[in-house]
């Protein structure tokens, strides 16, 4: 059964179309990573899912219910950690955790204590004195302590230092063991690579790829670095070869998986001296999908800063 079903979801901000027909399913008990650069539409998708924003078209179902109409019932089974956790400056962290967890149907005292300890969080301070990372921890603890079926994270590790990112990953792994459904958006690939059963790549308001990482890797290009006796002057003309770069003595290029046999034959005809083949990293998958729009998204990031 699907915990989340998104069909042909569109969203306009005035004239601007932020989402252009998103289709996405998340099975119960699955951990799905929604990855894409800044401005791709991750936060928009998540806020529609939570009934905070109205969709322009399509359908969004969570636990079989409409995300907008039945948001209150849906929220009984869900916890959400926004990309920037901003709370009441004068309240203490502990008070906020208690309040949010109570609204979510009661505090699991054991978990509350457990996660406060795990994240080395000081609940006695006023929220205004927490750094971004500490506010992020606060949001995570409040979500974890509520013990819900579905947890939605928007850029969860944005403000966490590497040590805390690791704690976060361990916590998510534990929740996965417990059978919780998790949706996690990110532009930090390392988070997603380790934790997620499946990833969906979003770019310019469209899902450009969904699947397990392994399945995606098969379809993608390997990175080959090679040195040959005879010069490889005509390499770019070989079918399936892309982005040839000179690398001192060696050449490096990307090779389509289905053409790998022909390419290797071509190389060995020139007398291979050394050869390295690296599987594509998520980074490569990711980069390829927004190569066209890459400069645009850089600009968006600059604007935001």
């Amino acid at each position, binding site marked *: 059964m699907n915990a989340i079903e998104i069909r042909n979801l569109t969203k306009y901000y005035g004239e601007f179309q932020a989402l252009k027909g998103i289709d996405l399913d998340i099975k119960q008990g699955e951990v799905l990573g929604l990855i894409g650069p800044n401005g791709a539409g991750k936060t928009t998708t998540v*806020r529609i899912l*939570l*009934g*905070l*924003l*109205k969709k322009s078209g399509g359908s969004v179902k969570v636990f079989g219910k409409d995300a907008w109409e039945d948001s*209150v*019932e849906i*929220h*009984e089974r*869900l*916890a*959400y950690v*926004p990309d*920037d*956790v*901003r*709370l*009441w*400056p*004068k*309240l*203490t*962290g*502990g*008070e*906020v955790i*208690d*309040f*949010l967890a*109570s*609204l*979510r*149907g009661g505090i699991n005292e054991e978990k509350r204590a457990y996660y406060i300890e795990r994240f080395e969080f000081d*609940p*006695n*301070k*006023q929220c*205004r*004195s927490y750094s971004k990372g500490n506010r992020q921890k606060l*949001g995570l603890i*409040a979500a974890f302590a509520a013990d819900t079926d579905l947890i939605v994270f928007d850029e969860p590790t944005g403000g966490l230092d590497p040590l805390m990112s690791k704690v976060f990953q361990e916590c998510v792994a534990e929740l996965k063991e417990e059978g919780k459904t998790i949706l996690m958006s990110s532009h930090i690939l390392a988070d997603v690579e380790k934790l997620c059963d499946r990833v969906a790549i979003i770019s310019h308001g469209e899902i450009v790829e969904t699947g397990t990482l392994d399945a995606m890797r098969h379809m993608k290009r390997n990175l080959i670095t090679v040195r040959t006796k005879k010069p490889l002057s005509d390499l770019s003309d070989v079918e399936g070869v892309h982005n040839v770069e000179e690398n001192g003595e060696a050449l490096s290029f990307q090779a389509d998986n289905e053409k790998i046999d022909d390419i290797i034959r071509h190389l060995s005809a020139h007398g291979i001296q050394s050869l390295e083949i690296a599987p594509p990293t998520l980074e490569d998958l990711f980069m390829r999908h927004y190569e066209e729009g890459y400069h645009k998204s850089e600009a968006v990031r600059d604007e935001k*800063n």
Partner: protein
Amino acid sequence: MKRTDLKGTLTLVLHALKGEWPRYAIWFFGMFALMVIATYANGQFSGEEMRELVILSVGEPGMRMLVSPIRPEGIEDISRFVFFRFSFVISILVAIMSVQIVNRLTRLEEDAKRAEMVATSGAGRYAQLFSALIVGVLVNLAIAFALTLGLVVNGVEVSGSIVAGLSYGALGIVFAGVAALTAQLSGNASASSGLSAIVFLAVFVVNALSNVTGNVHEDALGFESSFLAWFSPMGWVQEVYPFDDRNLWIFFLFAGLFVLLSFIAFFLVDKRDVGRGILPDKRGRGRAPGWMKKPLGLAYRLHRGAFFGWLVPIAFVGAAFGAATGDLGETFEDHEFFGEAFTEAAREMPFILIAVATMMVAFYARLALLRMRKEETDGPLDNVLSTPLSRTKWMASHVLLAVLGSFTLVMTMAFFQGLVVAETSSDLGEQLLGGVIQYGALFMLAGLVVMLFGLIPKQASAVSLAVLLYAILAGSFFGPILDLPEFMKNLSPYTHAKFLPENASALRVLTMYGLGIALGAVGFIAFRKRNMVF
């Protein structure tokens, strides 16, 4: 202090002017219009009528709180007469404006985390505060010009008009300094404007007392303030006498106080971190008490600071008003020849003051309701509404507290005033009834704010302020003084809340309560249907 500490000030000044000019333009034209209309409308009185009006106000100590000193000579001259009646409202508006300008450019920027970015992008430590003060001074000079122009187009003598205009500009500049200081002391923007409001209330009360305890001229043809006026910048404005003595040296007082306040503010900048106040962050409790885990409990926690900040001063204002009107009887015995009209006026006085207090409390109600918008823009709302709490319940908890809070404030004022003036318990009951009647107008305005929040969240703050100022200026107290046309006065709910309970129409009062509920309901429905927008 290093030279680089002020780096980037000019850029920030230009940035502020570019971003905020519509607000400044509204204030400029609003103040100009107020001055033109007030001068023109009051210019229609005959000399005899002006003298009568002066006698009526000056004869009552309670009323003297709301006017400024005037001398028997030249009462019939519109220049003196218009300030006699309008000094009070112009001072309030100029102070509110200045506090708002500086607060927006300092604390609000910090709360929005923009200041941090400015600070790390190479601007000097003092640049943010310095630029806010510069903008504050510039806008106040513009307001001085607007006031002067409003007088001059009505044919008032030019040099006196300039001095008069500048005296209010100077008061505004002092409040820019006050806001600069409170911005450093408090932890966030709303605490800072709350602290400024308390300072203003103190300045107002001291000045009011200086008028009450002042020296009344023969036959109540004007009065002089007592020495207390020198302890209140509002009193300084009134001591300038722009059309008589022209005490220009008082401007040194204004300048001195402004420099002192700014200096302390700059000094405190170094003593605190960006985003914090000078008052230290306390180590709090790590657990929420049971009541705070419910939506209404949390809303109470969020409203209570501002509420108790108002409660004590408003009780004090009630008692002070009461004390001032309390000895009415005695004053009037000296003026028996005024007869009936005076007894009537004397009875009406405490009820007028309840109306004025209700107008002040309207500002509290507006801010308490806009707390919802703040929750939305500041971020917590996303978190709260992603729990099983429905939008309607969340909204109801805030609206309920804003309404209960403002109602309690009005009734507290009426009660404390009643304690002093009332001779029997039925008198006290009548005072409270006066409060309920006046609150009808506020309730309707509150409904309107709720509607604005639901329908046009981004504009709700600006539009509700405009509506509120209009309702007050066209209402029962200022409307007649401004001699506005009937239809304009009738648009203000305050016009329909007559001062004396026996004059108020029950139907109209109930209609206002009903309209408040209807407008509020529109807000609730609209909020359920809209996006959360930052």
